[in-house]
């Protein structure tokens, strides 16, 4: 099966390349890049780790599959001793005191982190323009946005600066930039990978996931990071996914799609035509495809943002300049909090914090927040019903192609609505993979909770079908 990780592993083992030269080459590419995808480089550690891998190979010792493989990390993950800025003024000088579980698991198997990657500040955005490090430019056409919030991670993978990257997905932040940059990006079932050490945005939908150039690489990295973690009590037990299983024939799989996603006015004509062309190719393989009913996009987006804003208002209340991060002294403690937060959060983060406090306050919580929770339950129930009829749900990743840099910032409401196809699967906590095929921004493949194996198997089928 096609895999960048396996190819590099073979090259290292057969001594066609050294790990040091591999790491140095990628670091040079990252340094020279004009896409604003880098917040900080982990150069010294990376070169030290590469030298150790080379020494092991030269001593005739075996190395693991991920040992010596260079990867990138969205700048919202703790990696001890590294700057972890969340692309924000608030934390621009903050250093991680400890390492996130997901990243520690990759370090334990010998993967080499090269870079902390640019993203929307605290994950607040869908274009990677809400950042103090400059807007991340699209890997295919730099006049367009990279998508977000894990934009730097998607661009680094697309440009081969990293072999894979670890993004974070709350409402589509891995899947949408993966689609915009034509690579794979996976949001697993909520809880499959520990969130310990990931800066919290909306804790009930935050997911850790990989971006890579092949289904096989997604499988390898997903397996390495999955598992229960006592430091995150929402983690779940999961089983390892084998290469053999996802290479099996997908015939007999029942597929569904949400007809209101495709029939509405919001979808770009080319995305709609391409989506239907893909469905026809799938049907031509003897796969049964059903139309499904679902909530309208506006309701999904509103439900998601209501809950996400409430959660981020709560999660970011800890950032007040007292113990870490930026502090701007005021006349007294309350004034210090307010001055620090007013001057250190971006406009988009402030908009979301204020929105969150609005819906949590007396007089609004019943009409908006609690109603949002009810809607979320109904969305989940709808998914449960759908997965009794079909095995896979296919959908476009976005209604339209990527916007030009600067356009999303002018109209935040339009940016929120552009998440219409990704947020529902976040609310349902379902495993969803973006594949770089089918429409200009790819397709999403979703299965029932904990059925990552079927998602990857079907993605392999799509690779050969459309």
């Amino acid at each position, binding site marked *: 099966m096609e895999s960048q990780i396996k190819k590099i592993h073979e090259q290292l083992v057969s001594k066609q390349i050294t790990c040091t030269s591999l790491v140095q080459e990628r670091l040079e590419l990252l340094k020279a890049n004009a896409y604003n995808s880098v917040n900080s480089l982990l150069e010294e550690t990376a070169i030290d780790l590469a030298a150790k891998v080379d020494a092991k190979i030269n001593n005739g010792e075996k190395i693991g599959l991920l040992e010596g493989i260079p990867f990138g990390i969205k700048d919202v993950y703790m990696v001890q001793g590294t700057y972890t800025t969340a692309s924000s003024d608030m934390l621009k000088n903050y*250093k991680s005191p400890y390492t996130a579980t997901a990243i520690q698991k990759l370090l334990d198997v010998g993967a080499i982190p090269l870079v902390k990657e640019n993203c929307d500040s605290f994950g607040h955005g869908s274009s990677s323009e809400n950042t103090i490090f400059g807007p991340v430019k699209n890997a295919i056409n730099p006049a367009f946005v990279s998508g977000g919030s894990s934009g730097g991670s998607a661009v680094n993978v697309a440009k081969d600066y990293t072999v894979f990257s670890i993004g974070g997905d709350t409402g589509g932040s891995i899947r949408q930039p993966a689609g915009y940059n034509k690579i794979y990006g996976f949001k697993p079932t909520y809880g499959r990978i520990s969130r310990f050490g990931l800066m919290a945005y909306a804790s009930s939908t935050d997911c850790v996931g990989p971006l890579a150039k092949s289904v096989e690489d997604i499988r390898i990295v997903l397996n390495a990071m999955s598992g229960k973690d*006592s430091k995150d009590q929402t983690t779940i037990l999961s089983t390892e996914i084998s290469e053999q299983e996802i290479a099996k024939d997908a015939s007999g799989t029942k597929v569904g799609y949400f007809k209101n996603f495709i029939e509405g006015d919001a979808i770009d004509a080319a995305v709609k035509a391409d989506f239907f062309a893909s469905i026809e190719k799938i049907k031509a393989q003897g796969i049964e495809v059903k139309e499904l009913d679902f909530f309208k996009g506006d309701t999904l987006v509103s439900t998601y943002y209501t809950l996400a804003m409430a959660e981020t208002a709560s999660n970011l209340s800890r950032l007040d300049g007292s113990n870490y991060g930026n502090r701007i002294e005021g006349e007294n403690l309350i004034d*210090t909090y307010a001055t620090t937060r007013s001057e250190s959060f971006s406009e988009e983060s402030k908009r979301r914090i204020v*929105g969150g406090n609005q819906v949590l306050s007396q007089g609004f919580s019943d009409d908006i927040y609690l109603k949002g929770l009810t809607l979320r339950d109904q969305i989940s129930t709808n998914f449960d019903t759908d997965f009794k009829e079909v095995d896979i749900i296919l959908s476009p990743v976005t209604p339209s192609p990527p916007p030009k840099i600067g356009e999303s910032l002018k109209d935040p409401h339009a940016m929120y609505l552009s998440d219409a196809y990704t947020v529902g699967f976040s609310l349902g906590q379902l495993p969803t993979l973006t594949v770089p095929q089918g429409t200009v921004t790819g397709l999403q493949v979703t299965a029932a909770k904990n059925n990552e194996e079927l998602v990857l198997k079907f993605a392999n089928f799509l690779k050969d079908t459309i």
Partner: protein
Amino acid sequence: MSKIMTVDILSSIKGAQPSEAVNKLFEEIKNANPTTNNSLNNVNHNAVSINDLREDVVVESSVVERQIIKENFPIEKEGYLVVAKVIEN
């Protein structure tokens, strides 16, 4: 005694006002018609069962961790970490 708090106070953000873009989202929710109004019927069971709680254990921070926590403190003066000014009255 209840006291009305505005969003700028609740958010600790000076001059904060509700935004039009966000209010449009909330209007959509207000106008939505869920088939039930029972938000306690939570389908996504994320809460940990009382039987599955982890043990309370004290984990000592490493020397490096403690050092970085001190480095992250916003202000240090003559070896002391300086707290923000307290409210006088």
